[in-house]
Structures are given as structure tokens and as C-alpha cells.
């Protein structure tokens, strides 16, 4: 294992152009020595670890607010889409129906555009075209990733609403609840519970998707690691460090999702 690691590592170092004077089959002591040197060079000197730390802060900030925006947007779009599907047959033609139809068209258009194009292209369009006048990269990233996530959240929530048996709806209506109050008191609580794990997964996906923020020069975690690489000309340490940090975060949240799923199942009995 150690010899595999050592040959892998020295191979990487060699490719990175730093192998001058180093033997490719060095002893274990040499390996640890060069690993430590590399570590110090990449993270400690000139406080380079700050690139990762600050980048992580940006990644969290963008992910958190984009997720918030995505959920708000997703709920609104999901309600418009499912209300239109449910009500289009029973509504009488008129202004209200026309308005709902219009909003439904907008929502469908939004879903098609967002889900039909790569998020990194959307981010660049947001930064270089739509918000070209703004220099607030964090805000632009939050908006771009939020609008992107909203489309996926909308479909998750809509599938949750549609999965609720129509009898629940009729029971609510027959008690005298109107459409909206039936949604609020009866349908949405059940739908939300059903889709909570899927929503949490969307959050995990979002964390990883923000790694393309570097395309607009935003120094998130990935970009931070990349900057270190460009300074030290050593790819192994910074990129593996970045990967490990993402991995730890994702494992942590995945674990949370599993716990959440178990709790939800328990309350179903």
C-alpha cells in the first residue's frame, strides 16, 4: 500500500515538474519528507490555506442562499404547475383561468430553459450578460444557482403534490376548504414530507455544482485550490485537498438525509 502510494505520489510530483533530484523509488522516509515539504509549500507558506478556507466560506454562502432561493422559487413554480393541471378542467373560462394559464406558460418556459442548458453556461450568461453591470460575484452566483436549483426543486415538489391521492383533495374540499386552504392544510404537509429526502439530495447536488463558480472568477473552494496549484505548480496536494473537503461535506449531509429518512419512516409507522 505504502509503496503503491509512494510510486503514485512521486509519479504525480514528477508529472508536475517538481521531480528534479528525486528518485522515483525513494524510501518511505523520503516520501514522508517530500509529502511534508509539499504540504508546507502548498498550504502553510504564505498562508495559502486561506485560499481554501475563504473559498469554503464562499461555497457555503452561495450554496445556502441559492438553496433558499431555489426552494422559494420551486414552491411557487410547483404550485402554479400543479394548480393549473388540477384546476384547468373545473375552472370556468375567465380572467382567473387566463391568468393561471399565463403563469403556467411562464413556469413551463422557465423549466425548459433552465433544465435544457448547462448550469455553467447559465452562470456565465448571468454574470457577463444579464448582470454585466454588477461586480458582486457572490450575489450573481447566488441568483444563477438559485434560479437553476429552483427548476429542479419545482419538479421535485410538483411530483410530491401529484403523488398525493386525489381523495385527500376531495376530502378537504368536501369539508368546505377552498382550493388554496386544502393545499395548505392537507396536501402540502403530506407532499413536503414525501419529498424531503429528495430536496436534501438536491441541496447536496447544489454544493457540488457551485464548483463551477470559478468560471466567473468567483473564488470558491475549487477556485481556491486551483489558485494554489497555479502558485506552487503542484497539482496533487491542493486538488486532492479540495476533493476531500467536498467529500467530507457531502458524506456529512448524506448521513443527515439518511437520518431524516429514517425519522420520517418512523412517523409513518
Amino acid at each position, binding site marked *: 500500500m505504502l509503496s503503491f502510494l509512494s510510486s503514485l505520489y512521486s509519479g504525480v510530483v514528477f508529472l508536475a515538474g517538481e521531480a528534479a533530484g528525486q528518485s522515483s523509488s525513494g524510501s518511505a522516509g523520503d516520501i514522508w519528507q517530500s509529502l511534508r515539504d509539499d504540504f508546507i509549500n502548498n498550504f502553510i507558506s504564505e498562508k495559502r490555506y486561506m485560499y481554501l478556507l475563504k473559498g469554503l466560506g464562499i461555497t457555503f454562502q452561495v450554496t445556502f442562499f441559492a438553496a433558499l432561493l431555489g426552494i422559494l422559487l420551486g414552491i411557487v413554480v410547483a404550485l402554479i404547475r400543479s394548480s393549473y393541471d388540477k384546476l384547468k378542467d*373545473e375552472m*370556468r373560462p375567465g380572467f382567473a383561468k387566463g391568468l393561471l394559464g399565463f403563469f403556467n406558460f411562464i413556469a413551463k418556459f422557465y423549466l425548459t430553459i433552465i433544465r435544457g442548458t448547462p448550469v455553467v453556461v447559465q452562470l456565465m450568461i448571468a454574470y457577463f450578460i444579464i448582470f454585466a453591470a454588477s461586480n458582486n460575484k457572490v450575489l450573481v452566483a447566488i441568483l444563477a444557482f438559485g434560479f437553476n436549483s429552483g427548476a429542479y426543486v419545482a419538479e421535485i415538489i410538483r411530483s410530491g403534490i401529484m403523488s398525493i*391521492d386525489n*381523495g*385527500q383533495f*376531495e*376530502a378537504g*374540499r*368536501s*369539508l*368546505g*376548504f*377552498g382550493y388554496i*386552504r386544502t393545499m395548505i*392544510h*392537507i396536501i402540502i*404537509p*403530506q407532499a413536503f*414530507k414525501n419529498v424531503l429526502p429528495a430536496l436534501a439530495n438536491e441541496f447536496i447536488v447544489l454544493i457540488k455544482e457551485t464548483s463551477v463558480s470559478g468560471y466567473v472568477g468567483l473564488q470558491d473552494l475549487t477556485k481556491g485550490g486551483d489558485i494554489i496549484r497555479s502558485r506552487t505548480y503542484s497539482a496533487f496536494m491542493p486538488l486532492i485537498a479540495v476533493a476531500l473537503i467536498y467529500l467530507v461535506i457531502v458524506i456529512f449531509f448524506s448521513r443527515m438525509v439518511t437520518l431524516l429518512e429514517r425519522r420520517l419512516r418512523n412517523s*409513518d*409507522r
Partner: protein
Amino acid sequence: MTAEKGDVIISVKDLKKYYNGESIKALDGVTTDIRKGEVVVIIGPSGSGKSTFLRSLNLLERPTSGTITFDGVDITSKATDINKLRQRMGMVFQHFNLFPHLTIIKNMTLGPIKLRGMSKAEAERRSKVLLERVGLVDRADAYPSQLSGGQKQRIAIVRALAMNPDVMLFDEPTSALDPEMVGEVLEVMKDLAKSGMTMVCVTHEMGFAREVGTRVIFMDCGKIIEENTPEQIFTNPQNERLVSFLQKVL
């Protein structure tokens, strides 16, 4: 509530419900009056329109044409607040449709608290009285999934009663039940009939129709074919379709 016992509370005139233009006629001109205190039992073969008729009474199905007048108000009119009127018409479904995310007591108090503006304590007190009546007061804090089918349907009935309705509509309330649970639900419905509740009930339980019904309506092909007292319907059926239907089910 203005209607006295014996007064017409629901008046249905020439009710039609078509699907796909006119190709499927679920209801094809139904006219009848339902009086306060009556227990009207609707029977008929499947696809005869009896469920559609019942569901039209509180507008869960919107009729293509015709009028339904409830306590003097035309509920098919655009100006009518159907949500208000539905509060006065309890409905019990074949598949219970209890709210699985709420406990029994919350299933029952949701409507009275949110729609009638009742206090939580008052709504719970009244619900407990109703639960006592159907022998399920000890299950107040259980979730629907912990109940048997018969218990679920008894809860569905008292959930509708908690709104203190003038009329109760039953849409095949025992059809989804295991045979040994049918009795307990019919028992609750009998008690309800005895208490003077106006009931409209679609059912395949001919024993119930005979024993509890004050009037039986036989429907086929979206029309009322025959309506009479249970006595007359079961011992002296006139229409040949009713005769052959009764031969099959009795």
C-alpha cells in the same frame, strides 16, 4: 338552517353530466327532491351514474346542465360560495380519505377550528363526544394508519359530523371494507338515521336499504328508473331492469 322535518332540503332538476361532448352520459336528466329527515338510498348497477349523482350534490362533480338547490340556494350558480355550502353537507367516501399526517382528533377538529372558527378546546370536546358515540374515544391520538378499515370509516363519519352538517352523503361507505367490518359501519349509520339526520347513501347493502331507508332510488344509464319505499322496491318492483338487478344482488 330554515328547513323543518319533511321540507325539501335538496331539489335536483334535470341534472345532466356528459363526458367527451355528449358521447358518455353519466347523468341523463335526473330530477328528484330530498326532504329533511329522509334516508334516501340509491342503488343500481355499476356505471349507472349513482356515484356521479351523489358527488354532484356537493359539486365534487360539476354537472353539464340542470340545477341543484340546497336549502333554497342554487348551488350550481356562479355566485354561490360552494365552500360555505359544503360545510353543511358532510361526505363519507368509499376509501375513507382520512388525513394520514394528522391524528384522529386532529382529523376531526381541522374543519371546525379552521372553517367554523371554533376554539381548539371546544372542537376537541365535541369531537370526543362524537368519538364516544362510535366507541373510538381511546384512539383519539392514534394515526389513521394504526386503525382497521372499519374504524377508519367510523372516524370518517364522525369527522364529517364534527362540522355539524344538515345532510350526510355516503358514497359506497362499506364497499372497501372486509366483510366482518361492514356491520360496525352500518350500525353507526343506522344510529345516525335514527337521530333524524338527512342522509343520501349510495350502497350495495340491500339489507341496509330495506331496513333503514325511507326511500330507495334505482338508477340505470344515468336515469332514475324507479323510486319508492323500500317495501315497494323490494317486494313489488315494477321496472324489468330493477327486477333483473334485484335478482342478481339479492
